[in-house]
């Protein structure tokens, strides 16, 4: 006997993500799901962002790693509320894991909450966690063809940060190809070239972040 089901496989995740979203809305949080390969510079970006936003907007961080609290230790030095989730064997954060962190954060004292996902270019893009935007980092040593090899993440992201541009001279990475490859997958993606080492692009990134935050607060929002 055949039974029709027509149910999204990740419906359970999506329902919890929606609950998270309502929670964030109530607390006026703008929430970013930050994704990249391991070592692309997610934690360095958050350190720089914390410096830049100090005294302007209040940052909070949920950081996912398979093991250790090293990333949380680095970020909490900036007096930013930080919750570390160690996922064990899981290669991504899902809505339920994020929900488990929320009671430990004073969300009403946070303007921008960044969820630093597990370093991985595939799985994190599959799971919504209640974010306003997915954003990602592509770093120079990874090569400019990554958007074509891992299309879902580039397709889902509102912004691609091309990090470690200070290393360009040592590689055959082509910025124009990287931009073209990403726009081929996602014509609407915003792109910022940056370096956490020499500070290139950080102001542009902070402007992007601030603009999205004010759009969210005013209820304008983008797509």
């Amino acid at each position, binding site marked *: *006997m*055949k*039974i*029709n*089901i*027509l*149910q*999204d*496989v*990740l*419906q*359970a*995740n999506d329902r919890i993500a929606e609950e998270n979203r309502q929670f964030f809305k109530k607390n006026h949080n703008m929430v970013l799901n930050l994704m990249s390969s391991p070592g692309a510079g997610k934690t360095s970006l958050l350190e720089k962002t914390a410096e830049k936003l100090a005294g302007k907007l209040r940052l909070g961080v949920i950081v996912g790693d398979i093991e250790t609290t090293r990333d949380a230790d680095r970020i909490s030095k900036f007096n930013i509320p930080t919750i570390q989730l160690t996922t064990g064997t*899981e*290669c*991504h954060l*899902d809505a339920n894991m994020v929900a488990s962190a929320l009671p430990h954060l004073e969300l009403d004292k946070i303007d921008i909450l960044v969820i630093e996902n597990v370093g991985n270019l*595939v*799985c994190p*893009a*599959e*799971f919504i966690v209640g974010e306003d935007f997915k954003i990602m980092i592509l770093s120079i040593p990874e090569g400019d063809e990554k958007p*074509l090899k*891992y*299309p*879902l993440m580039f*397709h889902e992201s509102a912004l691609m940060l091309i990090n470690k541009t200070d290393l360009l001279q040592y590689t055959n990475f082509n910025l124009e190809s990287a931009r073209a490859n990403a*726009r*081929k*997958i*996602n*014509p609407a993606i915003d792109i910022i070239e940056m370096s956490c080492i020499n500070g290139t692009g950080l102001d542009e990134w902070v402007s992007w972040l601030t603009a999205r935050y004010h759009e969210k607060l005013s209820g304008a929002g983008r797509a």
Partner: protein
Amino acid sequence: MHEMGIAQNILDIALSAADKEGASKITRINLVAGELRGIVPLQLTFCFGLVAKDTMAGGAYLNIEEVPVSGHCNDCGSDFSIKEYEYVCPTCSSTKIKVTGGTELSIRDIEIE
């Protein structure tokens, strides 16, 4: 390796539906998986076999229907399939494309005894 989590979700949904029908065995699950979801069928069937073992879905055949990416052009209105992630309208070359297929991941139906 997101296949393990997905396999568990598929099993949970199938078991709950089969329970409601008073079934004793699930023999087949028909899954629709969009190309953009990056599912590796061999890996998913392997993971499903592991999680389903010792349940009434043990030994069930997981049929994965892969859906290619398709798009709709917001400029000229044509519908087309997107190959090699080329998000460009083949008719008018516009890049204002809305993805209309290839992101789904759902269970269409199951077969029970």
